[in-house]
């Protein structure tokens, strides 16, 4: 069994945590929950129960309050995912210009279904709802920086995948 890595932010991240909490009035530190979950996800890869409990302890709230929130919003991964999660917009305007084709292409090229992780652990993809980039469709984004890739074509998707593979 893998040794359980201790869930704790780096000193630098903890400084950021304090900075975020200071944005809100006293006793309203729960407001920091969404930003902290983003921070935690960037640091630990996904929102495991341990990560969420840790965030709860930082904010001095009940763990269930974190679970409720993390499961409500779509950006928090409650399961481990690929290193790169390709989130393709699947809503109307993007579909008018071929988003569904791009999703099919990704499925074929990666050889996994939506939500699954490629065997090398690098990729997973999912259809997401409108990313507010309808004029540049089809689009996809990759966390945790949420870099945007616009006007996708089969070629540009190919290129992107190669590029990401080469980084590793």
């Amino acid at each position, binding site marked *: 069994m893998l040794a359980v890595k201790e869930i704790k932010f780096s000193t630098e991240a903890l400084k950021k945590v304090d900075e975020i909490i200071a*944005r809100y009035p006293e006793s309203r530190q*729960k407001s920091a929950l*969404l930003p902290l979950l983003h921070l935690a996800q960037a640091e630990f890869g996904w929102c495991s129960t341990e990560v969420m409990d840790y965030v709860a302890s930082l904010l001095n709230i009940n763990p269930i309050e974190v679970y409720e929130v993390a499961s409500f*919003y779509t*950006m928090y991964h409650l399961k481990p995912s690929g290193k790169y999660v390709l989130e393709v917009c699947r809503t*109307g305007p993007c579909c008018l210009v071929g988003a569904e084709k791009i999703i099919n292409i990704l499925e074929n090229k990666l050889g996994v279904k939506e939500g699954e992780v490629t065997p090398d652990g690098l990729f997973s993809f999912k259809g997401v*709802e*409108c990313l*507010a980039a309808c004029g540049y469709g089809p689009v996809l984004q990759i966390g*945790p920086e949420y870099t945007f890739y616009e006007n996708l074509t089969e070629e540009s998707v190919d290129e992107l995948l190669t590029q990401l593979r080469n980084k590793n």
Partner: protein
Amino acid sequence: MAQKILLKNINIPGINTFEVYRQHGGYAAVEKALKTMSADDVVEEVKKSGLRGRGGAGFPTGMKWSFLAKPEGVPRYLVCNADESEPGTFKDRYLMTHTPHTLIEGMIVSSFALGANTSYIYVRGEMMPQIRILEKAIAEAKNAGFLGKNILGTGYDLEIYVQPGGGAYICGEETALLESLEGKRGNPRIKPPFPAIAGLYGCPTVVNNVESIAAVSWIVVNGGDEYAKIGIGRSTGTKLISASGNINKPGVYEIELGLSVEEFIYSDEYCGGIANGKRLKAVVAGGSSVPILPANLILKLANGQPRLMSYESLAEGGFATGTMLGSGGFIVMDEDACVVRNTWNFSRFYHHESCGQCSPCREGTGWMEKVLHRIEYGHGKMSDIDLLVDVSKKIEGNTICPLGDAAAWPVASAIRHFRDEFEWHVNNPKAAMDGNYGLANYADPIPVVEEAS
């Protein structure tokens, strides 16, 4: 050339930096407001301008501001709604990416007008790059003395923070946004009380769209009366339109309200016509929630007059023949687009984005999606069409927040105007899977109706 207010300097290199923005007259509104005007003066100018909420509802901004309660000793908040997620709308992303200081300047002036000392910009979480851009812009403005304590020596203090969302369309609804900002699930609140009385942390709060706030700076510098001169009737000023779909030049355009729809679609200054030499079939004019209109009705009113890009003209004819300006998400469909598929797609969106708090929306949106899916994939029944209309009616108006209406309208309007296409899907499942219904008679001239006696 039409007047530009928000995007006037958009092509100037470096306009995203404080320095260049300032060189081109930026932050003049802050100087003018803080040094020469009272808070009430600013509110008065915004009232005079006739500026209407650019997030979709079109409620007069000045009036919204004047409703803000001002009890002694209680902080007031301005929250900027940058949770842009209405399908078809991407103007706020564009504005924040390319000219973030326009928003920051507007935030300072608006916060001053409302007496807020802490303001938040709630940006949808997916826009992390824009969040970084805004945070940088805030730091620059603070460095230059336009934010923080005692701004420009006037004694006015203000901090602006950027808050990321977590991925939920519903947080574009103002009370859901406030819940989310408090670190909770994005469940819209039951109103009353309205945010103007009890909003963020129970304190009086104004929530405004990015574009509305950005417009305030120009209004302060040039005066509300000047702003009101632009546009047509009660649709004053300019509006950012996000154009997408099957057009030659998708993108964000700033128009003077009152421009004709035909010019907007076909002129080279704007959309540049339908892509690939195809013909226009339908338009969703104000973001996915507003009623879809066939080509003939979007270009002309029922009386044959041209339809204009304004709150009133787009709504002309009510739900029978009209639509809404909404958030300005202008989605164009060509003759190859399938209205049934698009309606199903939108329906899936609303099903996915329903918060699940109230029963009609939680249960109804999923039901509509399933029925539409069945029709689209060749298993529909003729009775499904009326069922959809009835379910949409049972949702509309009966929910806590407008998401219910937003889910109901696209379905109801698609069936209202494109019923023959739905019927064709039911009667020809095989053909519907392989091909599509085409333009049919949706672009035919509409018979001019007689004046109702």
